[in-house]
């Protein structure tokens, strides 16, 4: 007797069998996966028990032991906040990251528009010029930047920090946006141009709305990069009024610091809230940003 392989019930039974085999394999795999994940997340467990301990409790109890009460958190936050001036540092970093990333993505978008939509002479040469900015390690910028900033009076200034962050966040978004703008059909803007729209209008109302996904993803990537930066801010702006949140965090930690681990760990949590929150809320865009590449 032969089986009719086009018979729907036969196909369904095959699909069902395959699914069951996969599901049981999956169920068996869950044991090592969960064990591995628990081990992987131990530093986070450590973080969440530590923020509820006093310095004295931290020193006397085991580091992985549960805290005696939740109350010390308030004092830890207050200490971290006042010792490191976290409030003003957070506002500094929020403005560097928010404004810097928005300006960088806007400049990159405008440049990508000029390179893909207008008859720009030598468009490839201009692109290569900016793209060169992704090749060098940051270490090659530091000494000349510090020297130039000293000459221009930009050291320890809010504007100086913003300028370097904008510049450093332009090349990668340009690379991505040049690709995504090329993918938008030309009929859209040709029609608008015939209607008499200016290039600025075409850019703002035809191209930008068609690329919101990559634009948001790029904004998030660059925001995270600026918020997380220690290298540039530790050299160019370590003054207490302009320093970034990461410089403030670092000032709490290390050999010469007498701050208790419970306070330092609380400060790491506070300084991670904005980026982690953005990741949780806008996960879709973060993951899309990954597919664009990573910086």
């Amino acid at each position, binding site marked *: 007797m032969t089986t009719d392989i086009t018979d729907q019930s036969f196909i369904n039974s095959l699909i069902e069998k395959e699914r069951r085999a996969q599901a049981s394999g999956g169920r068996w795999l869950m044991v090592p996966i969960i064990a591995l994940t628990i081990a992987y997340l131990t*530093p986070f467990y450590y973080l969440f028990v*530590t923020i509820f301990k006093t310095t004295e409790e931290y020193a006397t109890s085991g580091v992985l032991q549960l805290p005696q009460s939740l109350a010390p958190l308030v004092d830890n936050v207050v200490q971290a906040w006042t010792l490191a001036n976290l409030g003003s540092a957070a506002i500094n970093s929020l403005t560097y990251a928010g404004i810097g990333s928005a300006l960088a993505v806007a400049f990159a978008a405008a440049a990508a528009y000029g390179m893909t939509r207008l008859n*720009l002479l030598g468009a490839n040469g201009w692109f290569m010029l900016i793209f060169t900015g992704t090749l060098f390690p940051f270490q090659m910028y*530091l000494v000349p930047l510090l020297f130039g900033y000293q000459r221009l009076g930009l050291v320890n200034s809010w504007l100086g920090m913003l300028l370097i962050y904008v510049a450093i966040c332009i090349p990668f978004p340009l690379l991505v946006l040049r690709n995504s703008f090329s993918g938008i059909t030309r009929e859209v803007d040709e029609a608008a141009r015939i209607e008499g729209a200016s290039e600025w209008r075409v850019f703002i109302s035809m191209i930008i709305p068609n690329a919101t996904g990559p634009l948001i993803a790029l904004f998030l990537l660059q925001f995270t990069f600026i918020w997380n930066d220690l290298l540039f801010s530790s050299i160019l702006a370590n003054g207490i009024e302009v320093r970034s949140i990461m410089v403030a965090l670092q000032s709490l930690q290390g050999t010469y610091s007498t701050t208790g681990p419970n306070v330092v760990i609380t400060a790491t949590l506070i300084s991670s809230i904005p980026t982690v929150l953005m990741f949780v809320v806008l996960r879709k865009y973060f993951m899309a940003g990954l597919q664009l590449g990573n910086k």
Partner: protein
Amino acid sequence: MASSASHMLSPDVIKVARSRERRAAWQQTRVAWLFIAPAVIMVTVFLLTPVVFNVILSFTKWRKFTGLDQFAGMANYQRLFAVPYFSEALGNTALWVVGAIVFPLAFGLGLALLLRNIPFQETFKSLYFLPKVMAPTAVGAIWYYVYAPHGVINSAVSGLTGSDFDFGWIFVPETVTLSIIFTFVWQTVGITMVLLLLGLAAMPRDPLEAARVDGASQWQIFRHIIWPLLLPTVLVVTILNVAAGFTTFDLLWVMASSYPGKRTLSLAVYMYYESFSNGAWAYGSAVAVVLGGMVITVSAALAIIQSRVEKSIR
């Protein structure tokens, strides 16, 4: 009306039309300049000019307070190999690059294959990705206490063995680099895994099914089907991780804050230490040039390999 047709073809009219066209094209180029100007100016002033200046600087005797006075020829580069710190930093950087290639890839691939067909995959992906969203400074501060003498790892080992264990992971030369690389891997494995999962998901199912029907073992399927198809993704991940291996700074600087010989931990740290803790600007610039040369050479080589592999697959 007939006369106007011949009038339109007269040389004069053609000339006028041509010049109008040229003017329109010229005008578009000028508009285009306005669009690219902010990006071009920012990148040229703040990134490219410093790089050129950095290279020039590396041939001078400049220190923080002496001012840019005289050229020193190759003196800074000769000094690199005359002091033991540089060679040590170079060796550790090599260790970092190898570690940044091998470990995230090995663990990331293992995780990706484990998580490929399981329920709650998205939740697991997010959990493993979370450390990447945090700053290396914050991750370093947490792991500083994880590795501390009475920190998480030593407590766990003490608890498991019953004896008192207080090894100084990031305080002794034998383990400091590997310990910090391990933290780097902890932070990077999630993004590596997510990228590899994307590569796996994009893979054609037919060859896999065919191999399974033919009775190929899991290892044979991986070795002869999954791995070659995944190679372009593997190379993308490798290019990202190699650059990170060469230049990681924040994590090292924070975690090695109590390590006496921290300047030797990598070229990125050595460059920072010499330039900004010692004020040897010209010498620090020379270190940066060497680092830049290595990063660009290795990245370019990998990019060429990647484009060849992609071509051969198509």
